[in-house]
């Protein structure tokens, strides 16, 4: 009669805190990662993160692949803005190989990278809204993310995992529909962004939920290796596009918005402002692209026969083209030995590629610096002492992408 049927772990009766598993498949985590929260009532005492649920060993796989086959791996890092990852990878290869891309390619890349940044920030910010209980904004902006994906489709044929561009440029020139859609986006989007901000920025409930939630000082953020909007929200104006310009970002005029307290509200505002800046960059780049006339307007890749596939019509009719095509596809080209670090401003911050080549056909070592992975470790510090509902909104405002975290 007095036998205890349920065996409780030792000390669990005396324990005054509650353990809560948030994730790995909780709908509010927006990705596969687990947080083991220790709760005192509704206050968080400690948070222990488990990551790696979708680890796919990209760094190992990359050691056996020729360069062009690594591009699809980079898609799957931050899949909300895969074109930025693709371009970052091409820039890394181009730096190693010493390829100089034409200006038009740089500008086209900037258009596409900034579109990707908008779609990334758009999702992040509207999800912050969803987690604060406001679904409308999310549904409202989704249409314009769709438009961005349609632009991707015109350029590379796919939407989410884009595998866009090649070493030296793009696989084909942007077609007229792509330009029309970019124009449409530039024309219609500002109104939508304004409406989205009207819904949230001065909304009393939203402000109360986000102001003071998960703050971090600039000093701590730097120590934790924060980059991107999360670092800028803490007040540090570090932006890879300005500090180490790539793809001709130095030709553009834009501001770096910064926050002060580094809380969820500042992160939200910084992302919104960055979208305006991205819009202005796209506009400038679009105008610069339109200025190319005649044969210049047909340039969409650099001359790199060893890595850029020859046109298909030549492959069928010319011997040299056939040989190059074969050698590239088979990955039979030895690249120069060297080590290179190239970073781009991804959706979440500094996305870095550390690439060591020993002169072989595949990378000797490739390491991705994934901003998400690095700043997620600050999560415990950000949420300690906060309420459970804050923990969720902090998570979405950090824009944690499981694919990027786990590589």
């Amino acid at each position, binding site marked *: 009669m007095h036998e205890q049927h349920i065996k409780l772990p030792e000390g669990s009766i005396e324990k005054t805190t509650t353990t809560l598993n948030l994730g790995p498949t909780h709908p509010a985590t927006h990705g596969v990662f687990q947080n083991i929260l220790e709760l005192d009532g509704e206050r968080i005492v400690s948070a222990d993160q488990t990551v*790696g649920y979708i680890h796919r060993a990209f*760094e190992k796989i990359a050691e056996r692949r020729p360069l062009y086959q690594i591009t699809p791996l980079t898609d799957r890092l931050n899949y909300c803005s895969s074109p930025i990852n693709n371009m970052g990878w091409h820039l890394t290869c181009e*730096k190693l190989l010493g390829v100089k891309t034409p200006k038009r390619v740089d500008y086209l890349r900037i258009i596409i990278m900034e579109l990707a940044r908008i779609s990334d920030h758009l999702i992040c910010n509207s999800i912050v809204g969803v987690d604060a209980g406001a679904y409308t904004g999310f549904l409202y902006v989704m249409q314009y993310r769709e438009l961005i994906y349609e632009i991707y489709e015109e350029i590379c044929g796919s939407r989410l995992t884009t595998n866009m561009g090649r070493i030296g440029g793009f696989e084909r020139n942007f077609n007229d529909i792509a330009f029309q859609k970019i124009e449409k986006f530039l024309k219609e989007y500002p109104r939508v962004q304004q409406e989205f901000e009207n819904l949230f920025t001065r909304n009393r409930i939203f402000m109360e939920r986000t102001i003071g939630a998960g703050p971090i000082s600039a000093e701590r953020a*730097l120590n934790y*290796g924060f980059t991107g909007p999360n670092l800028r929200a803490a007040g540090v104006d570090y932006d890879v596009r300005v500090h180490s310009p790539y793809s001709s970002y130095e030709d553009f005029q834009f501001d770096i918005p910064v926050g002060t307290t580094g809380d969820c509200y500042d992160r939200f505002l910084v992302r919104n402002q960055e979208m305006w800046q991205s819009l202005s960059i796209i506009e400038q780049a679009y105008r610069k692209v339109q200025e190319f006339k005649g044969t210049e307007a047909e340039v969409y890749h650099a001359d790199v026969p060893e890595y850029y596939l020859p046109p298909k019509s030549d492959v069928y009719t010319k011997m040299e083209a056939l040989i190059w095509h074969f050698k590239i596809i*088979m990955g039979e080209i030895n690249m120069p030995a060297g*080590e290179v*670090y190239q970073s781009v401003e991804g959706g979440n911050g500094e996305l870095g590629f550390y690439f060591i080549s020993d*002169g072989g056909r595949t990378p000797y070592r490739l390491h991705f610096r994934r901003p998400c992975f*690095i700043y997620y470790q600050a999560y415990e510090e950000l949420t300690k002492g906060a309420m459970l509902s804050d923990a969720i909104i902090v998570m979405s405002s950090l824009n944690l992408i499981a694919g990027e975290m786990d590589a």
Partner: protein
Amino acid sequence: MPLSNEQIKHKLVEKFGEQIADFTEPYGMLTFSAPKELNLKVLNFLYDNPDLKFRFLTDLCAVHYPDQKGSELAVVYHLHNLEDNVRIRFKIFTGVDQPDVYTATGLFSAANWMERETYDFYGINFVGHPNLKRILNVDEMDYFPLRKEYPLEDQTRTDKDDEMFGRGGFEGFGNERTDHGTLIEADKKGEGENII
């Protein structure tokens, strides 16, 4: 005046003398190495020196060079001086038999997970790390998968017999027969087409 690579080099040599070696500048980034016992001293010096101020740890990872006997593993730190906007790369080498390296977590909170990741994949034992356990791989894993002795595919698998992708009953890494559609490690440096 912005900080030049020459100045950094000069400061380091002034402080540590001969111990800092292998100065190179691949693609403009100053790269150097130090004995592994000195890693914290060097990092601290780079952090605290009022002229250097390398206070941002951009990246930390390891590389495996199985042919360098006695110093098979390299730990690579990428540091950034945000004020002068200068990046440097600092390497230390350690033997694979006793891969003990001091942790940088005291200096950079960011190093916590980066070191766990490095431990996870290369087995580098960061002495003094508060929580050195696997992070991306399963806890039960008993090897360090990014070391070069582990082939990409599990060669012992018998449930798949697919020569096109290197699972045709070959004997291990680099011994595979070349095949269309397979890129072979052993032929990486080979001349011309070794395709059968």
